[in-house]
């Protein structure tokens, strides 16, 4: 049993930490938060150093980082500043392109992402469909007309929807398919295509460095060659990547918890009440112990899930279960630890502080990339399946 990172992993973790500690500041975090602004400048700097699109292949400018390395970067960035760290949200699902895209699509988009020139987005969620998108089917449709797809419908909560150079849109292409997800196709729609419009979602509780938008498609016409992967296989394509993508998200949640914990630990030694630092009170000590233990437990689960992806790639069910457990647990821990950190800071934390931002930013982790409820359903489903019971 090994509980140590390799030298290279250690170096990557240190490099991410050093970059974030020197470049991310509370002032910047607050600015992005107040303005609902994607951290473009940090994004470009991070891209130059290879932190963007880390899991993309080298021949297109990526670093082909493993899942553990991606987790280390996500954790370190979020630990330093949860809002600045949202620079990592500009490339969600870009990895679907090297995985399923044509050579032309790879050459067109991936190098520009790796250089930090553009961001992209993936659109599955609709006003009426989120968790049930696969089971119930999508309202957004795409039909073939000559050598074009014609897309109609609406999407919502799309991360970097307005900033993205292109969106991988999930469309119902076969409305009769049973189950409906067998009729879902991913189609690339570029910014500025006539009939495609975006509207930023405000106000938003937190995670405002990753602006979210609703998208509308009114007879949007794109070439048939904008098909990403296979027709009617879009849902499978997304699901095949969720197991990987959920783990770094969970690592980000661990980072938020770690950052909030460190701030609370330090603050408790500085804040005096009853003529002594509040760290002297047993109630504070218990809080600190609980926060640290939860954070470390979540980290272990995240690292185990990442380790499975790297070392047991054929154990798909085990990976799915661990990814879901890690995501659900880390998201919960991030909520609980930021809550307790805010309590330790009390009034000082409630007003214009890093902690109140961390608290708001943490909340998204239990919602994006499958809600906590869906993660728990997946975990339970996998266990029931093992004993031959279908839920």
């Amino acid at each position, binding site marked *: 049993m090994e509980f140590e990172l390799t*030298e*290279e992993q*250690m*170096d*990557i973790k*240190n*490099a991410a930490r*050093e*970059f974030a500690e*020197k470049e991310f500041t509370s002032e910047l975090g607050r600015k992005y938060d107040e303005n609902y602004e994607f951290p473009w400048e940090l994004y470009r700097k991070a891209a*130059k*150093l*290879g*932190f963007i699109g*880390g899991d993309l292949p080298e021949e297109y400018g990526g*670093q082909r*980082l493993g899942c553990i390395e991606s987790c280390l970067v996500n954790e370190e960035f979020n630990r330093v500043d949860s809002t600045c760290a949202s620079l990592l949200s500009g490339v969600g699902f870009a990895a679907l392109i090297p995985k399923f895209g044509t050579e032309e699509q790879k050459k067109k988009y991936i190098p520009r992402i790796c250089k930090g020139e553009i961001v992209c987005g993936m659109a599955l969620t609709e006003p009426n469909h989120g968790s049930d998108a696969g089971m119930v089917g999508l309202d957004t449709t795409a039909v073939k007309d000559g050598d074009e797809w014609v897309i109609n419908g609406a999407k919502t909560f799309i991360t970097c929807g307005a900033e993205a150079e292109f969106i991988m849109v999930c469309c119902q292409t076969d409305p009769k398919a049973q189950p409906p997800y067998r009729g879902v196709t991913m189609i690339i729609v570029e910014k500025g295509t006539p009939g495609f419009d975006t509207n930023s979602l405000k106000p938003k509780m937190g995670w405002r460095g990753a602006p979210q938008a609703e998208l509308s498609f009114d007879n949007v016409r794109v070439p048939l060659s904008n098909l990403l992967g296979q027709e009617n296989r879009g849902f499978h394509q997304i699901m095949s990547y969720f197991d990987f993508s959920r783990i770094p998200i969970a690592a980000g949640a661990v980072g938020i918890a770690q950052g909030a914990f460190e701030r609370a630990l330090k603050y408790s030694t500085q804040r005096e009440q009853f003529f002594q630092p509040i760290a002297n009170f047993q109630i504070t000590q218990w809080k600190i112990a609980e926060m640290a233990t939860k954070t470390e437990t979540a980290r272990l689960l995240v690292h185990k899930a990442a380790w499975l992806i790297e070392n047991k790639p054929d154990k798909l069910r085990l990976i799915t279960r661990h990814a879901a457990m890690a995501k659900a647990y880390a998201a919960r821990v991030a909520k609980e630890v930021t809550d307790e950190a805010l309590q330790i800071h009390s009034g000082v934390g409630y007003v214009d502080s890093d902690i109140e931002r961390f608290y708001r930013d943490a909340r998204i982790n239990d919602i994006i990339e499958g809600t906590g409820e869906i993660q728990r359903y997946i975990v339970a489903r996998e266990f029931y399946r093992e004993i031959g019971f279908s839920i």
Partner: protein
Amino acid sequence: MDTIVCVKHVPETAEAEIAVDSSGKGIKTEDLVFDINEWDDYAIEEAVLMKEKLGGSVTVITMGPEDADKTLRKCLAKGADKAIRLTDKAFERSDAYATAKILHKAIKDLPFNLILTGTQASDDGYAQVGVILAELLGIPHATMVKKIESKEEFVRVNRELEGGLEQVMEVKLPAMLAVQTGINEPRYVSIMGIRKAREKELKVLGLGDLGLKEEEVGESGSWITMEEMFIPPVEKEAEILTGGPDEIAAKIVETLKARGLV
């Protein structure tokens, strides 16, 4: 330009809680984070910038424990081509002179035009190793360097003096320059750099490899022996001034004048 950069793996002490260890001659390091000496980070950046502009190579060298590989790998990731670590039980407790002797043995047969070091190390603050090394090699040196302009046979350097003065001088190559912070803007380590660093050579040499004898290094090979390390006691004397702002200001001026401080 072939450059050798001498670096040191030092504990980060700025915000840490420092305690003297049981020997009374060092500090407890187990809870401290080690990294490249701040001044050396500027030295390695300067060497890599010169390599990028003029070609040539950068070799980074350190004397230290195995853990110092972290600092060497960082330098390799930033663009150095080769790394050498000088490690031996006998090297421990070397002063600046003994350290310079060890570095001298490792460097004297390597091809180089320039040796760069940081102006000082943040842990022992000797600011001597580079200068003694230059003497042992019989080459000219300049310290507190804040600008380097490379010519064919020499370098033109700006030295930072007290009182905001700068001195410009030409130093014949090969030479040793001890650089000051602020000479450049050290780059971050990139993932690409870390990947490349894995394929670069990191050589480890000990006492025997350098042809040194035990009595030439460590405490016995040093000119200076450390007697004791301690944390200065906190001064107890404090005077709290009372009164209105004008009154307090007048009292402060009075006190400072009385002690000849203004």
